[in-house]
């Protein structure tokens, strides 16, 4: 299960962002996970909640946006439907994955100290 190592990298990234806002509390961490990223969202959430104490994310919730896989022909742009062969026969071209393999930190939401707002 590599979700823990992903969470570890995620927390490092959040920490780097939070450093620019001293005193702010990280409340929400938004991530986007592609269907073909090889990441189990449930495991990721569990790993986040297990790993977050004593980190910058201790008071944060994780919000995961799941992105479906989308394959297209790079030539005629036809979408290849789920479960179909990953090839455009008319163009004799292998399909290309347009989205669905992302493991992204999208944004964080910070609660600022009162005198900071």
């Amino acid at each position, binding site marked *: *299960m*590599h979700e823990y*190592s992903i969470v570890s990298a995620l927390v490092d990234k959040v920490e780097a962002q939070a450093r620019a806002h001293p005193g702010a509390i990280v409340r929400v961490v938004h991530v986007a996970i592609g269907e073909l990223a090889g990441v189990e969202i449930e495991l990721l959430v569990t790993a986040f909640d297990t790993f977050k104490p004593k980190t910058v994310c201790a008071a944060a919730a994780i*919000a995961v946006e799941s992105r479906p896989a989308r394959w297209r022909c790079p030539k005629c742009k036809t979408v290849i439907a789920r*479960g179909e062969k990953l*090839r455009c026969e008319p163009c004799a071209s292998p*399909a290309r994955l347009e989205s669905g393999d992302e493991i992204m*930190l999208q944004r*964080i*939401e910070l609660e600022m100290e009162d005198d900071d707002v």
Partner: protein
Amino acid sequence: MCESCGCGDPDLVPVDVHDNILAGNDLQAQHNREHFVEAGVLAINLMGSPGAGKTAILEATARHQRGLRLAALAGDLATDRDAARLEKAGIPSRAITTGNACHLDAKMVHHALHELPINGLDILFVENVGNLVCPAVYDLGQAANVVALAVTEGEDKPLKYPTMFRKADLVLLTKIDLLPHLELDVEAIRDALSRAMPEPRLILVSAKTGEGVDQWLAWLAERRARITRPPVGHDHGHGHHHHHDHT
């Protein structure tokens, strides 16, 4: 407080990031790739389930090849047994013991490269930890991904593990000497691969009988031919004199 719908809590300040969480690994992988290109070595990330026959294929490669200088890094949770087997087969090898990690990452490979000189090699095999999920997520700097799939694993693995097969440049269907004992439909595997791999490539091999190993060697030769070697006189044969983190 709204925590998940994305509409935004008025008391919270959003900070946009839009960054790949594994960017650190990808950067290290790119660094490894530069080492491989400078050394003119073909780096192969060999993945597959535990027991798919990854080590056996490399042993057979050593037995059947002529004149290639090979080396291997073998990732294993707890032992160095695979590396020991490869050494015995004549492939200089180093074990990467990952402890609990289910995959190799670019940093582990980089550390191991310090102990295994790659200059003068033709092919470096990185035998990943036996696992059909996690290793596919981590770029190591390899030129190609090869997935070993044993005939005993059934026809539907490519559909069940699409991330692994999507990233494969080649699938080796291993242990084909067992085919007479199984009700396996090789055409069904080809069909499943065509729905998981945009450019499916399958070679049937038996490490035991040697069947198909010549095709595997031909594929390796084809991939080696694609390596662009650095121009003559490029002074970078010394290994590690450029800047990077050696922690």
